């Protein structure tokens, strides 16, 4: 089933295009995570042709940039696996001695394994998410068959062990919260490139800045979002969502990028929702690419998850 593609990718990116840029922007929260620059920046060999690499700025069209970024973020390798530690926090801005201070509260955590199998680079792919913690939702599974075709809705399943239920999640709105975090379902499986109009609005020494405007505005709560894409490896490092009043309200950042095998991989990413005043951190560990994976992305594996998903 899985087509073997040359390029290996990191599963990391599963969650959105998040990638981290060195210094966090002004909106970055001051808590814990220090935004470090990528420890090792690797130039991408396969995806971007060598010709483009020599003269990238002039030649690349905006379509090429977003395509590369899409592959970088969601399609590294043929498949991938990682353990994810998710930390959700509310925050509060306080002004003390004239200085803004961020106070975090109501921390809750989730831990799950995530498996990804690509069917075609830049095309269909599958996800299998197996929950480990909190212990009372252990063994819960969330599965997606993502369809790149804009007219075909993704298929989504849910397995709830205590209620002993397999439910399909109805197609439609994918912009709901992923298990209570600030990530949305659409961030998990990726937003189809065909849904937005792309414009290259700025090119800096380090980044391409692409503005994405939805072709139909009805199904989404944002009016547009900007993505900063690392020029060296096409990793999306920061996404900023603006509402209908032009107000920035949501930010996704890649806080730390490491090379796993030969794939640049985001190992820490963060979403901040300025309206809800909350942010979610995701830390990835036990990252593996191109594992020996049977076709586990079927309904019968929901109740009896494969060993790859559990361990």
């Amino acid at each position, binding site marked *: 089933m899985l087509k073997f593609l040359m390029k290996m990718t990191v599963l990391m990116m599963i969650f959105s295009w998040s990638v981290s840029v060195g210094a966090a922007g002004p909106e970055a929260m001051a808590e814990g995570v220090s935004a470090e620059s990528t420890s090792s920046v690797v130039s991408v060999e396969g995806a971007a042709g060598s010709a483009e690499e020599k003269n990238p700025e002039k030649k690349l069209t905006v379509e090429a940039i977003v395509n590369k970024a899409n592959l970088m973020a969601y399609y590294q390798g043929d498949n991938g696996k990682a353990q994810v530690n998710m930390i959700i926090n509310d925050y509060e801005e306080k002004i003390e001695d004239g200085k803004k201070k961020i106070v975090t509260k109501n921390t809750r955590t989730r831990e799950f394994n995530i498996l990804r199998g690509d069917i075609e680079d830049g095309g269909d792919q599958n996800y299998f998410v197996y929950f480990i913690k909190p212990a009372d939702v*252990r063994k819960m599974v969330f599965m997606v068959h993502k369809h790149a075709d804009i007219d075909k809705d993704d298929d989504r399943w849910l397995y709830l062990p205590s209620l002993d239920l397999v439910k*399909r999640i109805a197609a439609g709105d994918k912009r709901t919260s992923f298990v209570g975090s600030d990530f949305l379902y659409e961030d998990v499986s990726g937003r189809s490139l065909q849904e937005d109009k792309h414009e290259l609005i700025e090119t800096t020494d380090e980044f391409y800045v692409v503005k994405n405007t939805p072709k139909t505005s009805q199904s989404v709560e944002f009016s547009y979002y900007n993505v900063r894409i690392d020029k060296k490896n096409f990793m999306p490092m920061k996404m900023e969502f603006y509402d209908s009043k032009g107000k920035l309200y949501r930010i996704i950042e890649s806080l730390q990028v490491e090379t796993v095998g030969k794939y640049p991989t985001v190992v820490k990413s963060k979403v901040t929702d300025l309206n809800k005043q909350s942010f979610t951190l995701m830390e990835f560990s036990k990252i593996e690419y191109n594992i020996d994976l049977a076709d586990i992305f079927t309904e019968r594996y929901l109740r009896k998850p494969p060993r790859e998903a559990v361990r």
Partner: protein
Amino acid sequence: MELRELISSFSIRHYRMVTIVMVLVTLGLGAMIPMIKTDTDPENMLAEDEAVRIFHDQAKKTFSLSDIVVLGIVNRENPDGVFNPETLSRIFELTEYAKTLRWPDEQQDGGGAGEVEGGRAAGVIEVDILSPSTVDHISQGKPGEVKFEWLMPQPPKTAQEALEIRDRAMSNPMLKGTLVSEDGKALCLYLPLTSKDLSYRVYKSLNEKIASFDGPEQYFITGLPVAEDTFGVEMFIQMAVSAPLAMIVIFLLMLFFFRKLVLVISPMIIAMVSVITTMGLLIGLGHPVHIMSSMIPIFLMPIAVVDSVHILSEFFDRYDPKIGREKTIRRVMHHLFTPMLYTSLTSAAGFASLALTPIPPVQVFGVFVAVGILIAWLFTVTFVPAYVMMLSEKSLANFGSAAAHGHEGGRMGRWLAAGGRLTFVGAKGIILAVLVLAAVAGWGMSRIQINDNPVKWFSKSHPIRQADIELNQHFGGTYMAYLVLEGQAEHGLSSDYLEAVNGRLDKAVEKLSQDYPGAAELGKQAKKLFNEKAASMGDKEKLIEGKASVTNDKEKPSEEKAAAGNDKEGLLGELIVALEALAEQAKSDDDYDAWTELAAFFGLEKERLKIFKQPEALRYIEQVQRHLERATAGGGKLVGKSNSIAGVVKKVHQELIDGREENYRIPESSAAVAECLLQYQSSHKPNDLWHLVTSDYQKANIWVQLTSGDNKDMNQVVATMEKFFKSNPPPMPMQYRWAGLTYINVVWQDKMVSGMLQSFLGSFLVVFIMMSILFRSPLWGLICMIPLTVTILLIYGVIGLVGKDYDMPVAVLSALTLGMAVDFAIHFLERARSTYSEKGSWQLAVVEMFGEPARAISRNVLVIAIGFLPLLAAPLMPYKTVGFLLCSIMAVSGGITLLVLPAILRLGEKQLFKRIEQPRGMTCNCGFCIVVSLATVLVVALNIHQYAVVGWSKLTWISIAAVPVMALVCSVISRRQACKTQEIANRADEK
């Protein structure tokens, strides 16, 4: 008296200087008025450190709760109500508009307008808006599908779609009654605000937007925050209208009585000057003008006018061009100085006593009215004579009773004379009638209903009041209260707890062994590990307890105790880490699985500590809610709706299973509950959950919607629940507390009522002491208290009989009653005594008394009673109440003074007047001393009781001990040489 001669001579001689000083003082203090800061928040009726406010603020923070503006939309033209495409699209537009109602946060960052970008703005909290387009709907999709979607992502295009939206909303118990009316015809939007003092701004903006719609819909905006904030705004407008209006009416009435424009101007000047200086002083000292203090001008005006009316009245009656204005005013001042001083002191004391109530704005109000009264007195005794001096004799031509009506004083004079004769002839009848009335009033008072509701501060025709009536008929209620349940975790590791965990572990291992052959052995290892760790932790805990008992430090141990409370979590956490490490090292997949399962067992134990994830706790909440919704008053349901985490779990469970009604229930296991909760968080608004439970699941919030904001109704709900909690203990230790604006109002009302009662008792005693001193006799002091006692009985008796709620304005007016009624009594008795000594018998004196003195009282009554009638037209209920009560208080206290006092004097002529013939030094009167001491002790006791939390028993002992001491001191003083000689002299005189 030296003082009175001194003051009046001074102002008569230096009248220009007196005037200039007064004008300068007024201008100086008046200049402060533009610095006015207003505070219209009834919450500030309670001090900021009041326990209930602290808890309320905490609860708001803990559950991110906000004060809510409720906007209801009704469409009566359409058979489907608002569920048609046109109305829904307007509602959609209105919601989008409401989202934009945000302004730079002035409080937080000193007006940094640019801050809006970063989310630092004040106004409507977009993420928490409840509206069809901002709430999530969970439902069944195709078979086997569960669906999360916005209830109304876009306005519907067809009538059919509109009805589908209705059906969806009606099928969701969380929305029915809250978002959509019970009958499925109307909708309500809930707009939470960052701060409730923005309510009026939001209210106005919404109304502007609504005005731009055409369509058959009706819009209703209400909620306590809007009512309170709007009241604050309208109150100031009302004040600006009412106070001058009352002034004008008073002015016209005085002109009617005294006929001389130039002369009548002086009381007006006194009133204005007193109001301006008092308000200037209040504002200048940095006090914000609260709902209470905004009434200061209205209270001050009648009192300020009274004294000058007395002067004018007497001046009017005595003026004779032959004697000249200077002599006349001197004589008038001589007569009136003492009564005026005492009336002002007593009125001031009455208001100052409000400083004893534990409610800060009432304290400020009381103190400043008292100050204002003294200022008015000072200006009256200095400026009125000075003013008279500034007039030429010529301008007073044709002035005075003599010129106007002959000596008898016209129609009023004739009526009063007849009244005087009546009191002489029918004294017994009058007393009897008053006694009967008082008895009836006493019964009426016992029926007084203490109640208040800020929404009812508006008259019934006001849009906010109408919205309140309309929306509470169709929805769960626009009044919010929060019932917070808090788990009381047991500290440390009890042997019971360890035993229970061991028991559950054994069972889990047994089950595990069926799947994994090696599990029994691994289970044994895990159990050993658990008990070892528990034992070592238990030792640590004992150590902490030991330390605590040695240091006896009250702060520290509780902290360490709290840390010990996390022992369970800590122990389980350590175990999970250890078992997971073992799993990683496992050789076989089976062993890995077994270790993982064991780790998960302890993980589940950890989740078990989260109380409000447990099915038993949720079922208890369910029970609490059922009981809440059963609370009734007079057959009507009080709680229209309540929402809680239990409701969320039930609804999600229902839709996850199959959507059938019977699955609207709490699932059996805590893991199933956790799955439901996690699914709920997979909506558009995951954080909605945190309004109902804290993220550690230790506290749960039940959002209670009441259809009535009457304090008595909230009280009823509180009482019902108290009973419930007593007879239905929770399945695990937890405590409950109330928060929410509706509840806060109850608390300050309780404080106000008990505070007012105590301060009233206090001022009653103070006035009594002052009267006893003034008349050198406790008996006369007592008589002086009769008119005000009867007046209060009658006024409050009628309030009780009529069924009018005893609310804030009514409570405050008791202080005014005391001040006004005693005023008349002092004037009357003081004059009665001096007239009696002139005439020698009451029969002769009474004729004189019902001449000029009675006229002064009657004029005062008429001027003020009629002067405040325009308040009845005010659209705000507290103003109406004040207007009505002011009228009644003046009329009743004037009437009682003129009827009852002469009747008593007639009946007790011998006993009463014998004493005043031979006045003795008051320190020589032992009885007087004792009575006054007793009263003083009581006053002190009352004060202490209000401030320190001293129980009555302790206080009683102090008071009882104080009385004999004072009596002893008394008798020593009254037996000293000076008294003896005086007594001998008196005896000699008698012979």
